[in-house]
């Protein structure tokens, strides 16, 4: 049972990271109907930026560990958000009216570009995060020893998701985003500046992705320029699993996927870990073709 609960908490932590990344995919898809393949690489860049900023400013030593990490996270999120907006401007905006598959190739090109840019700057080898960021102890939770990092990751991602949910549901801008996702033309007629909504989506999504990159760096301690592909694909799978375009769906899908993957690799086979997510996806799509929380869309004639 001990083993089971350890895997469960681990799965929850990984799953919440998937969920954070999945939000970026699902929001962009909701507004543009485009799979932003470069999103996984923005996540990688978040992890690398976090490492660089930690090494160059050592904020956690000068202004205290808690405040230091908060400032660091804000810096990473801000920088990755700006990068996301740049990607939107250069690679996606010129293709907004063109066939959708063309935009997909452009997205794949942007992904290849970013991934190789990271490799050229930081090198192809694994990079290591500075040690001692978070105390390497475990907390006793009802007789279960859980590492502090895991709790931190889970807590931070849940907080970010709750914040996003409140923002989307309760504010005027959030309403505008939802409106643009439902019907762009109608939203435009209601006086919503759709271009600004898209820009905003490309700021929020990458910011969350960058934060996820930082969390992965802190939890696992090492990062690599290709990790965006694995995490990106899992997160995209999570977004589809929950019903793409649906924000709570992405959160649910991410966490579910993380848990299934952790339990599957523990109890079935570790060698098949990366395949489990796709198996689950195919099974769910056969039963529910629009994902868990996706709505059935009837064809308009």
């Amino acid at each position, binding site marked *: 049972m001990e083993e089971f609960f350890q895997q469960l908490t681990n799965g929850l932590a990984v799953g919440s990271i998937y969920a954070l990344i999945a939000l970026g995919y699902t929001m962009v*898809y909701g507004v543009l*109907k485009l*799979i932003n393949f470069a999103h996984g690489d923005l996540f990688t860049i978040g992890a690398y930026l976090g490492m660089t900023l930690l090494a160059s400013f050592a904020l956690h030593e000068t202004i205290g560990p808690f405040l230091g990490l908060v400032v660091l996270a804000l810096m990473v999120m801000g920088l990755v958000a700006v990068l996301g907006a740049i990607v939107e401007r*250069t*690679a996606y905006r*010129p*293709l907004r009216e*063109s*066939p*959708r*598959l*063309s*935009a*997909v*190739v*452009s997205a*794949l*090109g*942007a*992904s*290849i*570009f*970013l*991934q*190789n*840019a990271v*490799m*050229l700057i930081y090198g192809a080898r694994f990079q290591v995060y500075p040690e001692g960021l978070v105390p390497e102890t475990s907390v006793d939770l009802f007789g279960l020893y859980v590492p502090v990092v895991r709790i931190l990751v889970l807590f931070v991602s849940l907080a970010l998701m709750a914040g996003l949910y409140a923002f989307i549901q309760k504010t005027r801008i959030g309403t505008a985003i939802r409106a643009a996702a439902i019907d762009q033309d109608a939203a435009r007629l209601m006086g919503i500046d759709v271009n600004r909504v898209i820009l905003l989506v490309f700021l929020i999504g990458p910011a969350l992705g960058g934060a996820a990159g930082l969390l992965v760096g802190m939890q696992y301690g090492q990062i690599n320029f290709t990790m965006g*592909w694995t995490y990106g*694909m899992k997160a*995209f*799978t999570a977004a*589809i699993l929950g019903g*793409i375009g649906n924000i709570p769906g992405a959160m649910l899908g991410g966490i579910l996927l993380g848990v299934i993957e952790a339990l599957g690799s523990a109890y079935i086979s570790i*060698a*098949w870990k*990366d*395949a489990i*997510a*796709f*198996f689950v*996806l*195919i099974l769910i*799509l*056969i039963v529910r*073709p*629009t994902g868990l929380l996706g709505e059935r*869309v009837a*064809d308009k*004639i």
Partner: protein
Amino acid sequence: MRNKSLYIYGVIFAALAVAPLFLNPYWVDVLNNVGLYAILGLSLNLIVGHAGLFNLGHAAFFAVGAYTAAILNTQFAIPVLWLLPVCALAAGLFAAVIARPIIHLRGDYLCIVTIGVGEILRIALTNDIFGVTGGPNGIFGISRPTVFGYVIRRPHEFYYLIGAFLMITIFLFHRLENSRFGRAVNYLREDETAAEGSGIDTSHYKLAVFVLGAAWAGMAGDIFAAKMTIIAPESFSFWESVVMFAIVILGGSGSIPGVLLGAVLFVGLPEAFRDFADARMLIFGAAMVVMMIVRTEGILPQRPRLYPLPGPGGAGGKP
């Protein structure tokens, strides 16, 4: 107009037919790769270009073909060229089994499922599934193809084998494009609901075109296995699917000359960028974005179908 383009194709064909005489083995091998990717691109073009189905896992079918050939050849010593129909059948069956339950899904769901199938297959091959795939090292010692007792060994010889296969592919796919099947598939790409309303069995056609494209990729896999004599799971990664997909979209989806040009650009250009060494892929990615922005429909897009108007008195030309 028509004569002019025929003339151009004739010149290109003649130049390609004698090209190996003037090139060193390295460049002939590059041309062989271009040819192989052209065949793969054309097979994916049926699925993505003509039917508009979003397939980002085409490397999986290529892999099924290559592994079928490799296993049957090394275990039972069956000549590789005899295995062409077997490879087509294996890849086609695999495609039918996975596509049957998912083919009706909306575009992007199909995309992630095809990516997923590609990844599952690659992981299965690496994990030495059924103990026949050789795990991460793959399978080696695949025998060379023989044509009427003549063993094909050098790049120059493969050039003509691949060239012949490519020619047959172009001819058949050109005929298919202009058939009832081709028109039906194009119709469902443009407007699925209208196609269904006109009596086209959309899921039947989607499945048929998917299986056909996959079977063709399986045959390309057979040639690939014979050419390399060693195959390993890395040769069938997601990256390969991305290259095939980009060849189709960037070249011009639905257009045979476009796909051929796409294969030349995608396989040939990285060779030309060799001097940039590490920055090669960086430039490659940027070039994909720029080319897509400059030519959003691809370099040589599919031309609209032209039909003569029926003559007076209903005696008109054939459609």
